[in-house]
């Protein structure tokens, strides 16, 4: 059934492709998946259904919206998962059960994120370490730091003041009944990152250095500075994702594991080019929603786990093929 729905998404996508090549196929894939989820579980159209989905997808969506900055500039940021872990573990250590401390702990975690981004950027720009290696090193270092800090057993719970962002639903909203704070965060961050990438000069410079760094440098783009900013945006988005994840599910020492690859996958599903120069914030967010939708759909269908993994892999490949197809078409026009 899944295969059918994916195919049916491809057909209108391809048909319209001729006239409207600018519509990213990720939105069709996402729409098809949402229809499939609704068919398999009609409760999904209730606010409880789709709002939970959006709340759960918010951390990954924010992470992907940050990661796309680094990918567009021609790099990868593998350290985001460990920044998430460090945020959750570090916050629980600093908060130490004190609900009133959230107001200064959150800025401290953003400062840590800023520092991580600057270091990543400096190492990549000035020491000429490939971003894959630089951020892999950072990932290992930060995981070690989180472990050293907490000895693997963080002290303190995350109080409700901290968990507000990831867990609370604002009740009593007309039409939709309630609104998760996490979704509000996603909307605000998403609009901010969209504006920065697609409406400012920085966005143009990012695309330029990702497309052809040499040409960009010759034409006077401050390569190093732009790269550092990209890594900082990515790290700060990881801190935000960490605050949401810690809020959603509480303290856990491996909360960020695997998120770096999921974020990169989300960007690729959204049509980003892995070697830089192409990618967009809304498409990356849609990619993250698509990824979460795949997980949710397969949970709902209730297939046995091995079958689910196979189907999940196939859907992922199909989604990326569609994205590449669109890119190639757009490239010719």
């Amino acid at each position, binding site marked *: 059934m899944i295969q059918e729905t994916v195919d049916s998404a491809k057909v209108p996508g391809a048909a319209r492709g001729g006239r409207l090549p600018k519509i990213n196929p990720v939105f069709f894939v996402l729409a098809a998946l949402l229809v499939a989820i609704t068919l398999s579980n009609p409760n999904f159209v209730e606010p409880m259904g789709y709002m939970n989905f959006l709340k759960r997808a918010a951390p990954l969506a924010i992470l992907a919206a940050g990661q796309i900055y680094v990918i567009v500039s021609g790099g990868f940021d593998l350290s985001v998962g460990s920044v998430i872990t460090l945020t959750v573990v570090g916050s629980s250590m600093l908060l130490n059960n004190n609900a009133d401390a959230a107001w200064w702990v959150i800025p401290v975690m953003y400062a840590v994120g800023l520092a991580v981004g600057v270091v990543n950027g400096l190492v990549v720009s000035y020491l000429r370490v490939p971003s894959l290696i630089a951020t892999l090193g950072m990932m290992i270092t930060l995981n070690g730091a989180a472990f050293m800090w907490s000895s693997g057993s963080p002290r303190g719970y995350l109080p409700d003041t901290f968990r507000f962002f990831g867990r609370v639903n604002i009740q009593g909203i007309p039409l939709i009944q309630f609104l998760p704070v996490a979704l509000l965060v996603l909307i605000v961050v998403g609009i901010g990152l969209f504006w920065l990438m697609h409406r400012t000069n920085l966005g143009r410079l990012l695309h330029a250095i990702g497309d052809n760094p040499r040409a960009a440098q010759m034409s006077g783009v401050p390569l190093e500075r732009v790269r550092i900013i990209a890594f900082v945006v990515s790290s700060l988005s990881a801190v935000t994702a960490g605050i949401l994840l810690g809020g959603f599910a509480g303290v856990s020492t491996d909360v960020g594991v*695997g998120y770096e690859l999921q974020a990169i996958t989300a960007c690729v599903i959204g049509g980003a080019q892995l070697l830089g120069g192409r990618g967009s914030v809304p498409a990356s967010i849609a990619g993250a929603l698509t990824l979460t939708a795949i997980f949710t759909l397969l949970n709902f269908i209730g297939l046995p786990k091995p079958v689910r993994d196979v189907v999940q892999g196939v859907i992922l490949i199909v989604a990326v093929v569609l994205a590449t197809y669109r890119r190639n078409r757009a490239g010719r026009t």
Partner: protein
Amino acid sequence: MKKLLTAALSAALFASTAQAQQLNFDDPAEFARQREMLTAKANGPEGEPWVQYYGDQMADTAKYKKEGPYTICFSNAGVNNAWRVTGWTNMQAEVKLHPEIKELIHVDAEGSDDKQISDIDDLINGGKCSVLIVSPNTTAALTPAVEKACAKLPVIVFDRGVNTKCPVTFIHPVGGYGFGIQAGEFVAATAPAGANVLMLRIVPGVDVLETRASAAKRIFKEKGLNVIGEEFTEGDNAKTKSIVEDYLQRGSIDAIWMDAGATAVAALEAFEDSSLPLPIITGEDQQDFLMKWKAEGFKAIAPTYPTYQWRTPIIAAVKVLKGEAVPGPEWVMPQPAITAETLDLYVNDKMPPLHHAMCGCEKLPDYPAAWGGQ
């Protein structure tokens, strides 16, 4: 990264299917034996389960007798989860109780079979060890390394097992069936017949976890409970909460059975956030779960895989080196479950949320600071 690991693991599993088929995780005889042991009386001093044991078979250790002071070597599978962190802290504190121990050499395999095999090699070749304690990462991979070590010095294995009888003794609590029985019987006795049970497990393929699940499933089948799903959470809070939310959208859940309770609080929060009454649940002795249980008063049980078992290898090592007999070839110790009646004994808001209450560590040196408590 976890995805990659899972892929690599499944490939490895696939390659070793021939071997996997020989493993039996649903053995009625072992099920019955462990069920009996849960209520049997153990030998040894009252109130100190880490030196208690079932049965009366002893291992003769006269040939290992040696003058002190001793160097104890410990090859650890890893300190990669909260359970192992508590256990490792217990072990270090236990060493401080034994003046005849000069040094504890600890090598951490960080969850890798290869590293642990070479760790053991290094320890043997270093020539400093009076005795070797091993907590194996996986059973099959570590068996040859342990056999090699047995030829050189006395070896004590604990926690997970190996496929050889060469160690002086293998220290462990009752076992996976026991855990599954305690949790399964509680659910079966508390929930009405035909109730919907969601089974949450961490990862597939680990013997102590597979037997927990098979024991519970056997009981659910006997009592006519409806298992609505069996899901792997990988020990991740966010994933656990998402899975439970999805199941709640599909229908009602009367009880949640878990093979490891680290993520129990996340599972409960899925009910809270959907404004539903909390289900019957089986957790573990992690403080965050015990605290919530006490605060909310839902129907629960916390079977344990007690971390006090980390004290026993040190006690055994000193006995072996003094030539005193120890329970062997297996030293099986009690495996208590925390119930609503005994809950108050174990809840302690001075300890961190990931601390494991069944540590038997309250009278050890540096308690509670070394365990992160106040």
